[in-house]
């Protein structure tokens, strides 16, 4: 038996017995039941599988689980704290920034990543930062609006 892989996801530690080359996306969805992270393309082109790795948005379909060991990983399930939505989640709700919402987890995590390095992004910066995330329903304008809303709300809370 290979050595188990230790992962830290949403603040919890997991020990996984799997092939170290398994994509993090599969480990999350199939081993750990964290299905909020979506498969969309398997080639890092659509952004549906985005998670935060040490706070940086990464495509979990492109990361072998071994490379995620010893990193702090945040998935969509880890954003809500004590029943309170993350300001970005709340902003997506308030802006109605989805239709089918299959891209939403990835959009939210990419936006959280952006706002952690740029507290008040311009629309051009949001576009630049989310260019790798596809929304086939075309709710892009509302997603931009949601990121602006979230930035405002996070500044007001001093986050």
């Amino acid at each position, binding site marked *: 038996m290979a050595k188990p892989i230790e992962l830290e996801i949403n603040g919890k530690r997991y020990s996984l017995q799997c*092939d170290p080359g*398994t994509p993090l996306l*599969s480990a999350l*969805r*199939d081993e750990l*039941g*964290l*299905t*909020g*992270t*979506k*498969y*969309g*393309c*398997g*080639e890092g*082109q*659509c952004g*549906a599988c985005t998670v935060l790795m040490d706070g940086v948005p990464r495509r979990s379909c492109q990361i072998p689980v071994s490379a995620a060991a010893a990193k702090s990983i945040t*998935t*969509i*399930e880890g*954003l*809500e704290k004590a029943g309170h*939505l993350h300001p970005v*989640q*709340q902003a*997506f*709700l308030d802006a*109605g920034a*989805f*239709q*089918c*919402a*299959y*891209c*939403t*987890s990835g959009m*939210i995590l990419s936006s959280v990543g952006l706002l952690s390095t740029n507290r008040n992004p311009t629309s051009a910066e*949001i*576009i*630049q930062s*989310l*260019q*790798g*995330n*596809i*929304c*086939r*329903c*075309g*709710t*892009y*304008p*509302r*997603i*931009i609006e949601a990121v602006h809303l979230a930035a405002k709300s996070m500044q007001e809370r001093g986050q």
Partner: protein
Amino acid sequence: MSGSSVKFVPEPERYEFAAGPMHHFELARRDFFKFLGAGIAVFAVAKDSLAKQETAPTQGFHQEELPKDITAWLHIGEDGNVTAFTGKVEIGQNIRTSLAQTVADELRVPFESVTMVTADTALTPFDFGTVGSRSMPTMSPQLRRAASAARDLLVAAAAKEWNVPAEGLTAADGKVTDPASGRSVRYAELARGKTLAQNLPVEDPVTPPDQWTIAGKSVPKKSARSFVTGEHKYTPDLRRPGMLFGKILRPPSFGATLTSYDAKAAQAMPGVFVVRDGDFIGAAASSESDALKALATIHAEWKEVPQTSSKELFSYLKENASPKSDERSRRTKGSVEDGLTAAAHRLDATYTVAFIAHAPLEPRAALAEWTDEKLTVWTGSQRPFAVRDELASVFHVPEINVRVIVPDTGSAYGGKHTSDAALEAARLARAAGRPVQVVWTREEEFTWAYFRPAGVMEIKSGIAADGALTAWEFRNYNCGMSGIDTPYVVSNQYIQFHSTQCPLRSGSYRGLAATANFFARECHMDELAHAAQMDPLAFRLKNLADPRLQAVLEAAAKSFGWPRKKTQEGQGFGIAGGLEKGGYVATCAEVAVDRSSGAVRVVRMTTAYECGAIVNPDGLRNQVIGANIQGLGGALFESIEFENGRITNPRFSRYRVPRFRDLPEIEALLLNRKDLPSAGAGETPIMAVAPAIGNAIFHATGTRLRTLPMVPNGLAPSRS
């Protein structure tokens, strides 16, 4: 509903999948109360003419026999909670919310108290499918009738309790009130301990749009929170005890047949189930990677057949057109020849559209579970009842033993009408004796799904010296007949759809053939306007008699500032419009063309849309803007490339879809016609996008682009 009704005109549409099931088996009324608890329910019964309207939307479809047994449309429980049932599917178009508004509005209960049960063949009344923008024009009035009937029951129950005539009582805010005495009683109390049932009336006066209180307003999406927390389970997110993951060994090319097969190594792998059934080869295992490893050990040889390529697509479509002229696909009026003779300007032009993919972000997926001889399948499908019937037929089990459930799905755009993944999962699950989930990869999705049909449109036209149309000949090869008619007044017309051999599996796509037909017609109208030296809007208005189409064109033009003067090099403005599926649309577009690089950027779009009385303005706006953005892809760069039975660009890195950077400034103008019944909005708002952009590119550069996509590699400098 009041006002003139928009009749759904039967169209023999080649690419709307059409087949009706032969039988229906539903829960009987008694079972229903057992299932839902006591209360008040409204049922559908056989020969319900309104349900018939829903089940057989077009002439070409199998005329559906109606449910022989009874299914419920609506239930009011002893706790006052309302459950409404519909076979419609939530695919992002927000139908769960809009229909809940409709029910709440008609029943006079708070929006929050209504729960919609959708797309579960064991629970919801038969439904043909979530297709053709039909949910608003047919399902919404259907549920209103159910709600209205339930309200009548509640009022009658209160009248009986108080021993007063029902006529004087009013229903509002979840209560029945007697204005004479001031007494009131909550619906919940009236429902308590009762099992009252009413059959759905054929006609029932329902609330006209100008008296709506909950419908007509923006309300938050039902269960929106579950989408931002990742909690909502799409089909690929479902897990069942003992579930295996299934993968399919695909043939190397379309139409390939299996000639030799050796799966000994795969069969020897522990925990792996291998199935070969005809040309179907699949494996199920406890992980996707194990299933893939098993497939990799299988030796399969295939006989391939030579096939055409996208390079020769349009000549192929023309050369293989059916020589038989189909009268059903033809509309004629006057004599085109006479009209051309009388014309001051004549124009002859050919337009083409490529195959494109829906590429829904949630790929085709299904989870199948057999329990004894009963099969339950969860799948993202627009046609759960058709999937049920196909499963029953393929597995030789009675329909009553098959249940298909559609979780709210990661979009479809007309692309999820078939039962492919459901059949695959069910076949593997049957062999494994355990639940099996099949989720297609993006490459499978781009290859083995079906495409928006490619096509060729030929137009011959003539105009008089004053710009009035004198002749209109329009031929469409392969796309279909949706939107093939011209909305313009022209006394000499010949319109013909030609069927032909289609080299790729094709099917419904948002708007069907109308997107292609609008593109050809509205670009051609622009060409004619220039020939007549008229403003393109003025030219259209001159040739129009339809006030609703005039209204959207004028609304879009006014807000856009039409006609606009170019203020910089490479700038251009275009307009297009039309009507389809009861909705009226006009789009104005501004483009910026960089003459040196050939880069084309859509800077701004204004789309005016009118679909009768608006049920949910926010939801409608989301649909209109989303359709405009999706339309950019097919207009500018989306195209499926293929060669010898293989798709050569089956991934997002090679098939470009609209992204954030492609986003123009978009304005949606919603014209609310409370005097008209609500039409759908999922499709028509996409239709004027491509021609408006094409016309703007011509205005900017003098280059007329007659092929979709127009600029997959930018505008060639030599062409400008």
